[in-house]
């Protein structure tokens, strides 16, 4: 093996690891997108802002000296509560007005939080405090950082938790029923409004966790940080098949890896274009997503 090939291989694994770390974060955000879409068919544009809010809660708590194991759950709960209020105040009144009005409202909500953040906290990026000593481990020629390991672990735990809630609990069953057919679920005595609130809470808290993880990973937080990852997570959700929970994870990881490969082996400035190109490709080739089945409109 030539030296060059060896470099290429170690590079490949380094970018793969970066991709998986990035992808885990996309997946965490994408899960909320997909769950909300699955239940009320809304592309919740403001989802990226729940992630931003989580990041800021984490930033303030860790700055004030609290450890990660308190800051992370607190950020999750905080984001969740914001999401529940938004759903109650804004999305619920417009739920039956059609998809485009709902989408516009979500767009408005997203801008509202971005610029509210700019107005109150300031537009300039804040340095995220270090929650623990970051060390980098070397395995062969491949580097992996402690933060990446933390991201993998937290993501695994949260996803397993979500999987358990959705498949093994009563409220999870009610969620699946509501997502399958809201009216029928209502007739079966399920309080669908409560299920929608719960879905928003869970989805946003996952996004909030992702916010804290990203803050630690890239060391900065700012009010606009939700826009691009939010869109990308949406793309991840569409890629996997929107409304399908495992699809969000698959889509997130695929997107994260694809992006880092482009950055690593091609042109780094086109990082953001990759995601949109993937979106357009998937919408044209298989709009139902990797794990979805195509449906025809009933005439």
């Amino acid at each position, binding site marked *: 093996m030539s030296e060059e090939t060896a470099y290429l291989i170690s590079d490949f694994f380094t970018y793969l690891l970066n991709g998986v770390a990035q992808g885990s974060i996309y997946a965490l955000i994408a899960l909320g997108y997909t769950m909300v879409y699955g239940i009320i068919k809304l*592309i919740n544009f403001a989802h990226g802002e729940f992630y931003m809010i989580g990041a800021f809660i984490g930033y303030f708590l860790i700055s004030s000296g609290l450890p990660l194991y308190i800051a992370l759950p607190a950020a999750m709960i905080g984001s969740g509560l914001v999401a529940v209020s938004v759903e109650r105040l*804004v999305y619920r*009144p*417009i739920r039956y*007005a059609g*998809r*485009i*009005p709902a*989408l*516009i*409202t979500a*767009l*408005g*909500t*997203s*801008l*509202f939080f*971005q*610029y*509210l953040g*700019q*107005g109150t906290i300031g537009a300039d990026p804040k340095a995220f405090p270090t929650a623990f000593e970051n060390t980098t481990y070397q395995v062969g020629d491949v580097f992996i950082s402690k933060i990446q390991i933390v991201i993998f672990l937290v993501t695994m735990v949260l996803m397993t938790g979500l999987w358990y809630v959705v498949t093994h609990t009563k409220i999870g069953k009610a969620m699946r029923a509501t997502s399958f057919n809201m009216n029928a679920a209502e007739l079966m005595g399920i309080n669908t409004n409560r299920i929608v609130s719960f879905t928003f809470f869970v989805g946003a808290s996952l996004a909030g966790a992702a916010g804290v993880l990203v803050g630690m990973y890239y060391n900065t937080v700012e009010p606009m940080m939700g*826009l691009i990852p939010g*869109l990308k997570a*949406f*793309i991840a959700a*569409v890629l996997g098949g929107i409304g399908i929970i495992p699809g969000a994870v698959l889509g997130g990881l695929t997107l994260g890896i694809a992006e880092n490969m482009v950055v690593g082996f091609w*042109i780094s*400035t*086109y990082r*953001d*274009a990759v*995601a*949109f*190109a993937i*979106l*357009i490709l998937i*919408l*044209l080739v298989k*709009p139902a997503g990797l794990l979805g089945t195509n449906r025809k*409109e009933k*005439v």
Partner: protein
Amino acid sequence: MDYLIYLTIQSGIFIILAVSLNLINGICGQFSLGHAGFWAVGAYVGAAYSVFAPLPVPDFVNLFIGCGLGFTAAAIAGLAIGVPCLRLRGDYLAIATLGFGEIIRIIIMNMDAVGGPRGFTGIPAWSNFFWVYLWVIITIVFVVNLLRGTHGRAIISIREDEIAAESMGIYTFKYKVMAFAVGAGFAGVAGVLFAHTTQFIHPNSFNFMWSVIILLMIILGGLGSVTGAVVGAVILSILPELLRFFGETVSEWRMVIYSMLLICLMLMRPSGIFGKHELDIKKLLGMKKGDA
């Protein structure tokens, strides 16, 4: 005084943007969120023409040629984006066009010849009140006359019911693409005029936020109404200046106010000021009775 003229010119550019987006979103019912991208294409193509290769003709002729080039380039971009995306419906189309709008911006960001992330400087100030409002009139007359003909009605029928339109023998896809390309083209003209007014353009002058602001203009005025688009554009061009009277802090909170306006409109009056109706002088004076 200069300031007032500048404000009026800016309103004119936004009227062109709003009326052209309205053709796509309000009249054809295809929800696009990438209008700022076409605006950018026009601005950069027009500016590149005037800076690198203007013909030895009077400035206003060059501006006109620039507008023609801007229209063509943006319309071609509209075709390139519309043909794949317009097969998608509703919310998916919105996201796909948003994506394309961002890709356009990223591509410009990476083009060193037009300044890339430094912005494009040294654009001649050929545009003025007269040329901007000439184009405002051209845009409005074009769209209104289009709507009164059979092709315009075909475009409206797609918004009303795409499947029924197709069943009436209308090639819906062709008309969706046409509305999209024409709308993009006029946004391109707005871009050329904008570049020759401000003399400096930057990829971030055309970011996603501007697509949303143009969208807010037509929603405020009433999706589908040309009058509404004009009124919405004027209101939202003046509003930031009015807010300035309340001090810098209020002005800084402009986008917060806009986003709340957008949400409140959707919750309380989703049809905007004019709904789908047009301002009709005869009807206003009670000379004509109408059902609508």
